[in-house]
């Protein structure tokens, strides 16, 4: 077992463990903090995959913005954050069954696929992933249209969120 595999296994265990805590913890503030741990684990996975830009964006956007937004939302709906009733509804075992079934099905699909055991080819020498990504995002021959559609979507979400949460007095 190489060092990279050991690092991957540790990161995967931490990520899956904290993800499990996200969906099972009663206190939602703790769940949001466990989500931060999960997102850090996924950022390390991106770094292991040589996707440095994605790792940085994961920390800045997901942890810096989305997780903090969750903590704000939990605080603004404080009355139910630690409500006395159960946190899961009474048919929770159906959800657990579906989740286990989807995990087993996806794993069987992955392990039955011959391409899943291949190792990654080494990066070409002098390969600049971030530069290539920037060119792909702004080149008319590549992905400039999805990129612009994403910015329009963000603007629409900004206006929509302000409109929905606006307190008319």
């Amino acid at each position, binding site marked *: 077992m190489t060092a990279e595999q050991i690092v991957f296994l540790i990161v995967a265990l931490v990520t*899956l463990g904290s993800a499990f805590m996200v969906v099972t913890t009663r206190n939602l503030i703790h769940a949001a903090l466990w989500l931060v741990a999960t997102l850090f684990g996924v950022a390390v996975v991106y770094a292991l995959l040589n996707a440095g830009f*994605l790792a940085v964006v994961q920390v800045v956007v997901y942890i810096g913005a989305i997780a903090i937004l969750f903590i704000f939302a939990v605080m603004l709906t404080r009355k139910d954050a630690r409500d006395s009733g159960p946190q899961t509804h009474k048919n929770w075992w159906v959800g657990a069954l579906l989740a286990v079934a989807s995990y087993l099905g996806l794993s069987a699909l992955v392990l039955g696929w011959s391409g899943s055991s291949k190792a990654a080819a080494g990066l070409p020498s002098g390969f600049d992933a971030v530069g290539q990504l920037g060119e792909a995002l702004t080149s008319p021959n590549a992905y400039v249209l999805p990129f612009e559609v994403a910015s329009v979507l963000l603007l629409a979400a900004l206006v929509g969120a302000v409109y929905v949460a606006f307190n008319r007095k």
Partner: protein
Amino acid sequence: MVPLSWYLILSAGLFSIGLFGVLTRRNAVAILLGVELMLNSVNVNLAAFWRYGDVTQMAGQVFAIIVFAVAAAEVAVGLALVISVYRKRNTVIADDIDLMKW
């Protein structure tokens, strides 16, 4: 070197845990937490397929960035809806928010 299947199984696990959270939690904010886990697992898949395929084709990373943008938009609007409903109905339990149920 880590084989591709390890990344895919990690993301399958993350997706299933998120699915469990979405299907079983009663609190609307906790349901959105589960959705975030599922979106993250998709991103792990996209990045892994980019790395194990042709690295000069940036489609995997580009679509991961699109998923980031969609996730940010989804959380902003979703939490705004939750806060708006909390203001009007004083609850965030998904079972109690049934005003559109026939």
